[in-house]
């Protein structure tokens, strides 16, 4: 057994380098698009879940149960193979057409079945977790806050928007950031449907020149770098974490 020798040029030069660049861009794009979908879904689910009417809560409870308790890989495969097929035929044809406007910088196609299925799958999966985490943050707000708002004449939704949600978001922000980071990392599962993101490209390099160790090392470092930058940005944009001094409210006997 010969000593370990590394050939980094085999990964960081020529075609493999171009693949990696495309992979990084694709991961960034699908993460950003998934972030938007997840946020939107979290808002809708949260709105339903905290409604005062039971009938409205049930659809949200069901959606949360289904998507939280099944594997994301299965969900992505479902959206790609079954979900896409359920769309009307002319929609599918339109998506499969060439759209120059839907080509993102770097040559990543937005309107492809792979990108759409991955974005949607990641968005739904992360959205249900985020909705539940914010709901937990909401339950952690002291009941006196709601009473104070009601006593001042606030209605249900305004009380929520101005008083309860800002506190709930501050309570839940750390785990919510964790979910957004998960979304980025779990985008690697989209390699299974052929989305050419980092993991997909790393495997392609491995089968191209067998530089498995180098390719996976580089891939890992890329995820690490993206994750650290993204985590810092999200923590800094967090709701008033700097000014809201927590835990200092005096409690009576």
């Amino acid at each position, binding site marked *: 057994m010969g000593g370990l020798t590394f050939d980094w040029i085999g990964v960081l030069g020529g075609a493999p380098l171009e693949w990696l660049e495309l992979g990084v861009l694709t991961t960034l794009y699908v993460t950003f698009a998934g972030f938007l979908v997840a946020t939107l879904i979290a808002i809708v689910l949260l709105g339903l879940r905290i409604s005062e009417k039971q009938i409205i809560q049930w659809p949200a409870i069901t959606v949360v149960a289904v998507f939280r308790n099944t594997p994301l890989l299965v969900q992505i495969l479902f959206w790609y193979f079954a979900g896409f097929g359920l769309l009307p035929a002319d929609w599918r044809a339109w998506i499969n057409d060439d759209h120059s406007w839907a080509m993102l910088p770097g040559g990543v196609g937005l309107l492809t079945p792979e990108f759409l299925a991955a974005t949607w799958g990641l968005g739904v999966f992360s959205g249900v977790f985020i909705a539940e985490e914010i709901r937990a943050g909401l339950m952690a707000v*002291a009941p006196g806050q709601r009473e104070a708002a009601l006593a*001042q*004449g606030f209605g249900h939704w305004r009380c929520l928007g101005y*008083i309860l949600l800002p506190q709930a978001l501050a309570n839940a922000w750390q785990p919510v950031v964790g979910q957004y980071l998960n979304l980025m990392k779990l985008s690697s599962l989209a390699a299974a449907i052929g989305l050419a993101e980092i993991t997909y490209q790393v495997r392609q390099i491995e089968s191209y020149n067998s530089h498995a160790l180098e390719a996976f090392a580089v891939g890992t470092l890329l995820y690490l770098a993206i994750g650290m930058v993204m985590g810092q940005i999200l923590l800094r944009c967090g709701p008033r974490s700097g000014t809201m001094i927590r835990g200092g*409210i*005096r409690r009576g006997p």
Partner: protein
Amino acid sequence: MIEFRDVHKFYDKLHVIRGIDLSITKGEVVVICGPSGSGKSTLIRLVNQLEILSRGDILVDGQSVASLRSRSLRQLRTQIGFVFQQFNLYPHLTAEQNITLALRKVLSITPKDATLRAVELLERVGLADKRQAYPAQLSGGQQQRVAIARTLAMRPKILLFDEPTSALDPEMIGEVLTVMRDLATSGITMLVVTHEMGFARELADLVVFIDQGVILENAKPSDFFLSPQHPRTRQFLRQLLSPLHTAND
């Protein structure tokens, strides 16, 4: 101004308020006292419907609160200030923002006028220099004074106080009572649940003693403290005024 008419409150089978009749005229300061669990907090929370009436009615300015829903209830609540035992300031907002939020979002007052009102009221409660402080940066007494300023900013007709000094360290009770004394002499109608018998003796027009959801005594402070009618009131006052010497009674 406020009229309780055969007011009852049940929590499931627990009957906590059992037929209260009480009439409070405009500008009166009424102190409600009684042992813990007697229903005194529940009674004032019924006035602005933080608790829902089970039976009977409360008239505020001739308007029945039992029948109020959504918009008209919110409208009524803006006219009734409520000060909580635990202050309940909004921790994510500064002292000034705590005061201006409802002015802007509930009463639709312009930000400029809301800020003016906040500054004026913070000055009135002696906290002009704490405009930008967050609740957690304030002492309990300061927080309660901001909470009172927040309540006054709405220019309510009625003020309800739910044990406003019970969560405070002893040396901070004075500063809150001073603010309350100014209010009591200002002519606003006040309903105060408290154990501060000094406040009751000096400033109340009427002292109401409640036990087990029933009014046992309803008298002017001079009569209440000097010649209480009900034996339960006498026992309560003995305990409150000299707690060490009542164990063998």
